[in-house]
């Protein structure tokens, strides 16, 4: 079944077209990454899926229902952490679940620990480093009960090791709970390592330039990244992106 | 010496300021007449008439921000007890025209009827004392009257609601009632107690003005007397002059009020403006006896007739 169908989306701001006839879909339980040049419209695409604004034309279907312009259908991690400064980290991470149901504090505390933020449960966002805020925002999206998770560059502010930890953690959660994930990143390796499919968006106006289906079996181990097959994929996607910039 | 005096005189004769006690009304007609008919100019005075606003005429006169003012005997008495150096230099109306008024349908015809009624006042202790004085004459008990503070609410509004009677000046509010066709019952203070027949309003000046510029005071009173004489003789023309000077007043009310008030300026006195020491000491004594004054008033110092024209 299709978790998400994006059908011929077009969106412009102030007469300049940002997205033009973008179409793709995500299967139930699928992990799909989006790659594309900076400013091409990835975040805008998320905003449309999340119902923040309506597309100029085209439709969005989630779980088979037409949800164009409807909010509250996805779990969302924005590109900038967007933590509320008057809430502690614990209060911030439960926000997404608070909106929909009774928040589960013990699960939240557990996740905070997993993300390496123990000791900061009761700190305020201003007391955290950039990467720590990003992890808090990440936890917040994971704690949402929604089955489609849209992550907008979730690990951009993390060092390689913390990033790898987070990636593995994300994969384990994803496998365990069979959620569908739409993932924006600028890191090609990350996209290949995590995804079932990688979608490459072209520059403004953004169209789906190409889709890659990544064949690696799961569970994947980080050693995968050193294999020749992996490097081949990396190179291919790299070349695809190169022509765009 | 001489040239200084002349210069000083020059300056004073050029301009003096008069503060009213309230907004302009027929109590002030003589002043506006003197202004309009040039009586002040004849005396070499250029008079500016000011409204007091919140600033209170007595303090302004005492502090010489204004040279002359309008006040009332009861106020001036209290002011002098507090060592405020103001002096009354002329009674504008010979007898107290105030009293307790109520709409006719309330059926209040004598102070005895106040029992069980609601009086609307402004919360001053003097009110209860006056009520009590009136009611005693009729063997009624002031504690049977409910006294309510009605603040700045006007008479007509107040009696529409919880209030049965209030203290008014007939010459303005009473006349307005006539114009409205609202019939009133009125008990004048003067009908019940001689001691309450005090002067209200009066013209005032400061002690230092009297000491330093007696000629100016003399000149001022000469012009004002002439103005009030005119108002006594020609009420209609006088009313027109006031309306002309203060066009924002209601002309109907001014005319009617003037007609009612003109004969009362002088009434039974030999001359407009004369004050009697008896009146001053009587009322002060009454106040003192009712615990409304902390000390006795030296009545002689409170007023003077010396500036009235021959």
């Amino acid at each position, binding site marked *: 079944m299709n978790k998400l169908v994006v059908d011929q989306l077009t969106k412009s701001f102030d007469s300049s077209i940002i997205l033009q006839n973008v179409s793709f879909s995500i299967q139930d339980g699928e992990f799909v990454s989006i790659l594309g040049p900076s400013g091409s419209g990835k975040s805008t695409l998320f905003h449309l899926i999340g119902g*923040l*604004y309506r597309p100029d034309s085209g439709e969005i279907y989630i779980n088979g229902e037409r949800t164009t312009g409807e909010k509250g259908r996805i779990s969302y991690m924005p590109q900038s952490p967007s933590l509320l400064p008057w809430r502690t980290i614990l209060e911030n991470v439960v926000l997404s679940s608070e909106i929909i149901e009774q928040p589960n504090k013990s699960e939240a505390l557990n996740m905070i620990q997993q993300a390496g933020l123990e000791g900061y449960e009761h700190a305020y966002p*201003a007391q955290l480093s950039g990467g720590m805020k990003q992890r808090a925002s990440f936890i917040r999206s994971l704690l949402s009960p929604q089955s489609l998770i849209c992550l907008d560059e979730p690990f951009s502010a993390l060092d390689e090791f913390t990033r790898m930890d987070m990636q593995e953690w994300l994969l384990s959660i994803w496998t365990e709970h069979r959620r569908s994930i739409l993932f924006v990143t600028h890191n090609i390796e990350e996209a290949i390592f995590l995804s079932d499919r990688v979608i490459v968006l072209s520059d403004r106006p953004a169209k789906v330039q190409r889709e890659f289906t990544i064949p690696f079996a799961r569970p994947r181990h980080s050693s995968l990244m050193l294999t020749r097959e992996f490097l081949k994929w990396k190179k291919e996607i790299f070349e695809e992106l190169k022509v765009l910039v | 010496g001489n040239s200084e005096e002349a210069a000083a005189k020059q300056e004073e004769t050029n301009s003096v*300021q008069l*503060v009213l006690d*309230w*907004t*302009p*009304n027929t109590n002030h007609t003589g002043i506006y007449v003197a202004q309009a008919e040039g009586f002040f100019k004849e005396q070499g005075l250029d008079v500016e*008439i*000011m*409204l*007091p*606003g*919140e*600033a*209170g005429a007595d*303090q*302004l006169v005492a*502090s010489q*921000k204004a040279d002359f003012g309008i006040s009332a005997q009861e106020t001036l008495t209290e002011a002098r007890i507090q060592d405020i150096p103001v002096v009354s230099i002329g009674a504008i109306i010979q007898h107290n025209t105030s009293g307790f008024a109520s709409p006719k349908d309330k059926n209040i015809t004598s102070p005895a009827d106040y029992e069980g009624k609601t009086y609307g006042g402004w919360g001053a202790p003097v009110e209860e004392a006056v009520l009590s004085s009136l009611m005693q004459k009729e063997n009624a008990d002031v504690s049977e009257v409910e006294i309510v503070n009605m603040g700045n609410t*006007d008479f*007509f*509004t107040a009696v*529409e609601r919880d209030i049965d009677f209030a203290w008014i000046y007939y010459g303005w509010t009473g006349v*307005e009632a006539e114009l*409205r066709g609202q019939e009133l019952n009125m008990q004048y203070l003067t009908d019940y107690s001689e001691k309450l027949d005090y002067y209200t309003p009066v013209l005032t000046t400061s002690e230092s003005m009297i000491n330093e510029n007696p000629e100016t005071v003399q000149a001022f009173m000469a012009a004002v007397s002439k103005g009030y004489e005119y108002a006594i003789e020609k009420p209609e023309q006088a009313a027109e002059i006031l309306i002309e000077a*203060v*066009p*924002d*007043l*209601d002309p109907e*009310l*001014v005319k009617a009020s003037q007609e009612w008030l003109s004969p009362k300026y002088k009434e039974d006195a030999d001359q407009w403006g004369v004050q009697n020491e008896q009146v001053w000491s009587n009322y002060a004594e009454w106040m003192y006896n009712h615990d409304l004054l902390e000390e006795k008033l030296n009545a002689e110092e409170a007023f003077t007739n010396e500036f009235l024209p021959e």
Partner: protein
Amino acid sequence: MTQRFIRGWRPVAVLLLFILLWELCSRWFDIPEWLLPPPSLILETGISSWADYAPHLFSTIRLTFLGFMIGACFGLLLAVLLHLLPSVREALYPLLILSQNIPIIVLAPLLVIWFGFGALPKLIIIVLVCFFPIAIAAMDGLRQTNPEWMHYMKMSGATKGQIFRKLEWPNALPSIFSGVKISAAYSVMGAVISEWLGANKGIGVYMTLASSSFRTDRVFVAIFLIMGLSLLFFLLINLLEKRMTSWQRKGGGVHE
């Protein structure tokens, strides 16, 4: 454009409705004119006695405008000063509160005695009324700067003055306008009150005279003038605000 036009008319429609209701109530319940005159009578009086109150009106407008300007400038200056000198702020803040609690009845004689009957004491009263909301709102706005921006400015070596001009001031503008709007709403009333200090001209005087001769219709004409004036004033400031914070409607703006 037409949409803006329609939106602009909404409040006008509400006002008209309100006035209509008032007129109807006056007639139905037969409310006496001396208590609450119907709008039609007020309009009539307003038109017929234009010549009577025009000089009063202009005098009040002049006074209001001057007083508000001085008051706003003073409030802003004070806020800036107290913002830049935190130790002075703490010492003077309570005095600001106290300044709003001096009853006119006490201030009036003192002001007249010190400054006479001229424009000065009246201006002082309007300034006293107007400076306060601006000063408080501006101080609060100036304090609430995004710490990230502040850190950037400080590390870039911006002087106190530069931080103020380039960061704190533009950041505080919405708060300041909030204060200015409150002040503007009070300024006309402040002018009217100041006229009770003893003036021979002004809407306040006109109103007192009308009231003392029981001309309720004229009292209401005065009120309408006061209200109209302050509304006009408010709209002007709103316009200025829209111009000066136009960036808020770009991008970051309101999608819906």
